[in-house]
């Protein structure tokens, strides 16, 4: 069977245009990247509510906060590197500290940006955004979850950061899958080890579980579409039931999902954990799929790591 592949940024652009038709208070701000972030789909439908800010991300973030203070709901898009990295302090002071109802929708997260290389491959955004009080941090795994995350972000009052990818990834959810901020989901049950994944690594984790099953190892696969607030109940139950945790993220192992899980388990349910992700390293140029292999982030890599732990 052919598996449908869609980039989450593509799903974001479509979801935004859909949502814009229902809610006249949605404005979209972009920094000269509307074609790449896919906010162009919103711009085509609602040109008067799409504000191109030019290549000036700091101003864009604070301007969005000002628009939110006027009662609008701004969705702000640029690459993750510039949204969370370059404009971090504007996000911190003008958006998070003011509890602004701004939705930061960053595309091109992680190494699967591909050929553009390390300068554009942001592996630190989740770590940065997690530190901000009140900031919701989401990282959808596929197109279905991406669309649901955009809707949930609008419904939530307050600042939200969502990371989307450039690379087309398998659709692993049914069209009508439910999504709730702060809730993870068990995609496959098992008792030998729990694989906790976010973003495109969730599809890789499912592949790993297949490989493991062939070896007689039953892995529980949990998708964590929200990293903050973390679904503590689900993670603690996984630790209790499986006794071993493997975390997978297309992000630095410093400050991301892996550390969030470790912090929780260290305090409430200590158990062995291994963190897969970028091991304190920058990315490099190359095709996205090749980079996942190069940095040992494929389903086969996850299966190997899981076997070592069991």
């Amino acid at each position, binding site marked *: 069977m052919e598996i449908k592949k869609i980039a989450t940024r593509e799903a974001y652009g479509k979801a935004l245009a859909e949502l814009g038709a229902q809610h006249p208070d949605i*404005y979209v701000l972009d920094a000269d990247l509307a074609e790449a972030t896919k906010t162009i789909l919103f711009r085509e439908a609602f040109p*008067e*509510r799409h*504000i191109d*800010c*030019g290549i*000036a991300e*700091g*101003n*864009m*973030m*604070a*301007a*969005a*906060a*000002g*628009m939110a*203070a*006027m*009662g*609008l709901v*701004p969705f702000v898009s640029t690459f993750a590197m510039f949204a969370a990295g370059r404009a971090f*302090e*504007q996000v911190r*002071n*003008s958006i998070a*500290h*003011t*509890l602004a109802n701004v939705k930061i929708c960053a595309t091109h997260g992680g190494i699967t940006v591909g050929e553009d290389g390390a300068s554009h491959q942001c592996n630190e955004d989740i770590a940065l955004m997690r530190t901000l009080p009140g900031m919701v941090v989401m990282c959808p795994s596929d197109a279905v979850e991406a669309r649901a995350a955009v809707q949930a972000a609008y419904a939530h009052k307050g600042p939200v950061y969502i990371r989307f990818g450039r690379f087309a990834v398998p659709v692993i959810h049914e069209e009508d899958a439910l999504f709730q901020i702060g809730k993870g989901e068990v995609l496959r049950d098992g008792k030998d080890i729990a694989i906790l994944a976010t973003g495109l690594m969730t599809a890789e984790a499912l592949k790993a579980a297949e490989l493991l099953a062939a070896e007689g190892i039953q892995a529980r696969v949990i998708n964590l579409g929200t990293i903050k607030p973390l679904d503590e109940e689900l993670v603690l139950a996984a630790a209790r039931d499986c006794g071993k945790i493997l975390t997978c993220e297309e992000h630095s192992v410093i400050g991301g999902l892996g550390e969030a899980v470790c912090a929780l388990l260290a305090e409430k349910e200590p158990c062995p954990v291994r963190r897969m992700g970028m091991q304190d390293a920058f990315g490099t140029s190359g095709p996205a799929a090749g980079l996942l292999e190069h940095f040992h982030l494929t389903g086969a890599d996850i299966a190997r790591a899981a076997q070592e732990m069991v």
Partner: protein
Amino acid sequence: MNEQSLKELSLLATRARMGILSATHAAGSGHPGGSLSSADVLTYLYFKEMQVYPARPDWPERDRFVLSKGHCAPGLYAVLALKGFFPEEELTTLRKIGSRLQGHPDMHKTPGVDFSTGSLGQGISAAAGMALAAKREGKNLRVYTLLGDGEIQEGQVWEALMFARHYQLDNFCVIIDNNNLQIDGSIEQVMSPYPIADKLTAFGCRTLPIDGHDFEQIEEAFETARKTKGVPSAILMKTTKGKGVSFMENQVGWHGKAPNDEQYAQGMAELSARLAALKGEE
């Protein structure tokens, strides 16, 4: 401007200066220098220029003000208290635990504060965003923002000006408090932003250079700004840092230091004398 208005504004601005001294003295820290240099324009804004009502601080159609140079919060608080947004006695709670008057403005704590600021260069962007929102949503209101002359060293200020010109925000008025001093020295010594007027004009603003302690010039500038169509206005005010307190005037050391008891008494005596002189003219 008639004699009566001029006198009323002068009285209010003097009382605002007394509030600035009382607040920073009680706090034992804070920024009196730039608060004093901007006390006149802040007084004019809240008592003559802006449509704001203390009884309804959240009225959606009100004009907005963003103190981009957030460290001059004592100046803003003193004027907000005079206007009636909160009791004047509260000024001496500045910077204390539990106070509504934070070291830098907080929109969720202080009635009358339209946006939280403190990190330089960001308030102007937020204000520009407000002006754009007002325009797109068909609201007939104006947005004002006050910046320091050191603050314009931040690149983001120029991003915001580009944005304001590009989107033709003629409901947007930038005010620059050109008192010529920043923490490490004069602005020329530290990192000269001059010629400021030329730069503002080059960025597409209607530039209005004035004496920032002359209420007639302030009034004229705001009237011109109001009539300006298609471009944002930038009022470039020449001011004296520490204005109104003799030993603080033009002294770089009074950027971010509170008066001690003796200095406070002297400053208040000078301002009281000024108040009495203004009243005596009646």
